[in-house]
């Protein structure tokens, strides 16, 4: 075999960023390479400097960042022998612009913002062609349509004239990929290309990238935090932490023989489906939970475990997008966010709620929290002191209810007021409900800090001084302040890094065990739900399509949507690659692809929850037999 030169060779790269708080070394003498036609994955957590490296390669570093050392060599296979040091090139020069978009291109994370809303998809993809080549209009258009076909648009001619808002998230990301590949670059830098996507769409996009990469013989520098993705697509892997390379090797080196404590820690921190019951994730930085001082613990333990704490019946909510005008008639198109949703949460359990974005899981949590009023249905809360009608509660009843049900939010950055100290944030619920006097509140707040493993000396600090995980712990402490029975966790870890995610999950688990809490745990990540939940409800298009105990759901899923979700989770394990055959094009939530007995019948007879074993229900036609459902 003829030895090939490295396509991209980064040698001892250092990048410094000037911040208000001083100079920050974002990248410290990092070295890595990308071979032509291969995928190198650069793996790290947020703040590890991986995106800075991507920006350096493309010459799009923000003005506060400067390359301080090293070089980036780009050996264009079309011009053998010529080696360009990208660090030496003026970022606005003709030469760099000729490379950018043509020889090196980028796939962005957020397909919503990477496409201009004002231009058609075809127009945007073709732009790179028009800039870098002198093809006639008709030829450029033909190539663009060819590209659209290649990235899997079902009707490229029609797609050419469509605007981004007409496309789903998955198709948008395909368009972004088409834009990056239109000039057939030698190197594509993909910065978290699937992070913003649902898990089933992520699997499709990964499959597409893999296919195109071998078809077009291009190299990919894949930047990600998800080891599961790495195991499925990468050839070589580089692990970066805090701007320094921790470990590098071929994909089998990394996954079969991890050496560095950081990599080992990362691999241990990812929840997976094969965990033994009761097995704990090992977080890099574990938190000690101490609830002994929290007085509420004993009072709650008295309640009966297993009795129904909260039940929702027939919840329906539709949102209408109104086209209003001064003179025009108001038309409204309604979209059902919740469609006849019923579920029960039992005291002491953790009910997992899984579904893709837009399936209505957050709306459901907001209905339970009385933040959104449903069109129909009822929610009853019963902690043993007589049932409370949640939707009708007013005045004192509502205030009592507020102390019983609390919420942990997804985004630890927007859920804490930036203008308040942690002290104020944590004592606010106590003030609202007139608990104790100023002095006892300070004591209580200190106890809460200890419960979530934060130093009480941090109380005078502002949220912006905390890391994402620490903020999320403050959010959990705030939710615990009033001594709730039911905690609704709305994607509490999806904004966090893997190592921090394990820490928060363990914290939530420990709190549940020690305080006897009940959780409604909402997530799009099946592995996370698997780790946390006792029972799992799968939600799709505003409906709960399957609900079962955890082991049952993972062992014998019945609903096609559940199966698709399960098949789409990428594992950080080389022996369990994604099974692309079960992942067809189109979305898994498209009811048309389901077997007929899961679809609504022509006579509009409502679907019912078919009983398929203990605690296992599947939404199907009333006439369908259990054996039929199992066998499809």
């Amino acid at each position, binding site marked *: 075999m003829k030895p090939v030169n490295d396509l991209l060779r980064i040698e001892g790269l250092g990048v410094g960023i000037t911040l208000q708080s001083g100079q920050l070394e974002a990248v410290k003498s990092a070295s890595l390479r990308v071979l032509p036609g291969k995928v190198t994955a650069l793996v790290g957590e947020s703040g590890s400097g991986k995106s800075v490296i991507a920006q350096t390669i493309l010459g799009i570093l923000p003005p506060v960042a400067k390359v301080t050392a090293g070089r980036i060599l780009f050996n264009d296979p079309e011009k053998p022998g010529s080696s360009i040091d990208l660090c030496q090139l003026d970022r606005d020069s003709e030469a760099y612009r000729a490379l950018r978009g043509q020889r090196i291109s980028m796939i962005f994370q957020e397909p919503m913002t990477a496409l201009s809303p004002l231009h058609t998809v075809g127009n945007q993809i073709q732009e790179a062609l028009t800039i870098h080549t002198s093809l006639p209009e008709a030829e450029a258009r033909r190539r663009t349509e060819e590209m659209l076909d290649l990235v899997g648009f079902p009707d490229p001619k029609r797609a050419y004239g469509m605007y981004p808002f007409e496309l789903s998230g998955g198709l948008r990301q395909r368009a972004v990929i088409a834009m990056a590949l239109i000039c057939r670059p030698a190197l594509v830098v993909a910065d978290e290309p699937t992070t913003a996507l649902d898990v089933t769409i992520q699997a499709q996009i990964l499959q597409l990238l893999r296919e195109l990469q071998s078809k077009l013989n291009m190299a990919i520098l894949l930047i990600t935090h998800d080891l599961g993705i790495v195991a499925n697509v990468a050839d070589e892997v580089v692990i970066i932490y805090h701007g320094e390379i921790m470990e590098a090797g071929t994909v089998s080196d990394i996954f079969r023989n991890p050496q560095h404590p950081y990599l080992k820690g990362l691999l241990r921190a990812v929840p997976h489906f094969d965990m033994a019951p009761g097995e704990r994730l090992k977080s890099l930085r574990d938190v000690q939970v101490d609830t002994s001082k929290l007085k509420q613990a004993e009072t709650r333990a008295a309640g009966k475990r297993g009795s129904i704490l909260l039940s929702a019946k027939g919840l329906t909510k539709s949102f209408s997008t109104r086209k209003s005008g001064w003179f025009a008639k108001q038309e409204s198109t309604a979209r059902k966010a919740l469609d006849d949703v019923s579920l029960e949460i039992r005291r002491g359990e953790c009910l997992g709620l899984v579904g893709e974005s837009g399936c209505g899981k957050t709306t459901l949590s907001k209905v339970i929290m009385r933040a959104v009023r449903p069109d129909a249905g009822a929610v009853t809360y019963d902690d043993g002191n007589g049932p409370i009608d949640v939707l009708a509660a007013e005045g004192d009843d509502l205030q009592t209810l507020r102390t019983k049900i609390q919420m942990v939010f997804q985004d630890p950055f927007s859920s804490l007021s930036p203008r308040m100290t942690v002290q104020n944030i944590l004592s606010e619920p106590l003030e609202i409900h007139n608990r104790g006097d100023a002095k006892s509140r300070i004591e209580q707040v200190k106890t809460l800090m200890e419960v979530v493993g934060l130093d009480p000396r941090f109380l005078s600090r502002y949220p912006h001084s905390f890391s994402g995980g620490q903020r999320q712990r403050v959010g959990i402490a705030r939710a615990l302040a009033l001594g709730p029975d039911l905690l609704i966790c709305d994607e509490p870890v999806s904004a966090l890094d893997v*190592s921090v995610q394990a820490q928060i999950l363990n914290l939530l688990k420990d709190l549940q065990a020690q305080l006897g809490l009940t959780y409604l745990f909402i997530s799009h990540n099946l592995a996370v739900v698997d780790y946390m939940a006792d029972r799992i409800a799968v939600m799709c298009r505003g409906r709960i399509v399957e609900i079962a105990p955890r082991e049952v759901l993972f062992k014998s899923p019945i609903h096609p949507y559940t199966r698709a979700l399960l098949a789409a989770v990428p594992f950080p394990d080389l022996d369990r690659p994604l099974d692309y055959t079960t992942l067809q094009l189109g979305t898994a939530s498209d009811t048309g692809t389901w077997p007929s007995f899961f679809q609504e019948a022509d006579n509009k007879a409502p679907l019912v929850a078919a009983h398929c074993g203990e605690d296992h229900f599947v939404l199907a036609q009333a006439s369908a037999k259990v054996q039929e459902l199992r066998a499809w």
Partner: protein
Amino acid sequence: MTSPLPAPGAPLHHYVSTAPFDPHTITAMTNEQSKVHLASQWKLMWWKFKRHRVAYYCGIFLALMYASTLFSEFLAPYNLHTRNVEAIHTPPQRIHFFHEGSFVGPFVYGRERSLDMNTMKRVYTDTPNVIYPVRFFCKGDTYKFWGMWDADRHLFCPAEGGTLFLLGTDRLGRDVLSRIIYGARISLTIGLIGITVSFALGIIIGGLAGYHGGWFDLAVQRVIEVLQSIPSIPLWMALAAIMPVSWSPIVIYFGITFILGLLDWTGLARAVRSKLLSLREEEYVLAAQLMGAKDSRIIGRHLIPGFISHLIATATIAIPGMILGETALSFLGLGLRPPITSWGILLTEAKNVSVVALYPWLLFPMVPVILVIIAFNFFGDGLRDAADPYN
């Protein structure tokens, strides 16, 4: 192995960093960082503002201007209404330091007046043998300091028997510089009073529109659009005409500021409304609602602190509009009336083209107007940048 990089093209060997690894280093903070992290919002804003050099110096300039209004009597060499019949329409006198090659200190030459019989214009010529040294911390015109104490000290004043008209005099022989210094009092404060009125209206109306939405929001939006579409000068004229002629000048002064405030709240109300709409969607507001917080608490503890910094910045940018409005109104003779003196009133002297051609120094009051407005714009710009220290 020391480098993770193999020779070009060679197969990748398995590299493991041997540097000591501590998973907690990433959470450790340097002193500099912890200083930033412990800072409150206002401190962060101050640091960010200080880095905007132009805004910072404009802020200092404005602070000095406002401080000067407290000591106008002391700073001005003449009183507001001191007339010098001997020196009508004098051009500015230059300060000299050297007389015939020898150092004397700051002084002005004496003036001789003659009448040009062709144009009937008074012509002033320096008399090189009469020297009037400028006195400092001297006794001059008597005044009542802050309307309470009799005093006669000035920062600087003309020599005994001499004159000191650094920016010339007007048609009654009054010192233009002194009148500008006194005029700052009215011109600078009229903006503040006007902005207070429009601030109050803007926050209340915009806040209600933003928080409640619905028909009230719709109505407010339409009213704002209508108000903004009316040409401002005719509207001012109509409103100024409402004020009874019998009112004392000081009451008219308040009336004018009130009118300016009444017309200026629209921009502020819009700013408040849009800021409120975006803040209402923040999760920490939802969190407070779910804790059972009342509306008043949410507005007071979460929403207002969230946008007050933006409001201050918006208001700062609105002040120049007020000052210009007063200047324009007074210039047209609709605003303040003598004997109240503002920069606009001073400029009415220069209404006539022939006056401007013959006595151009009467346009000097424009200089402080321009400087103050530029300073306010830069200052407000810096404040606006600093208002959101978390981005």
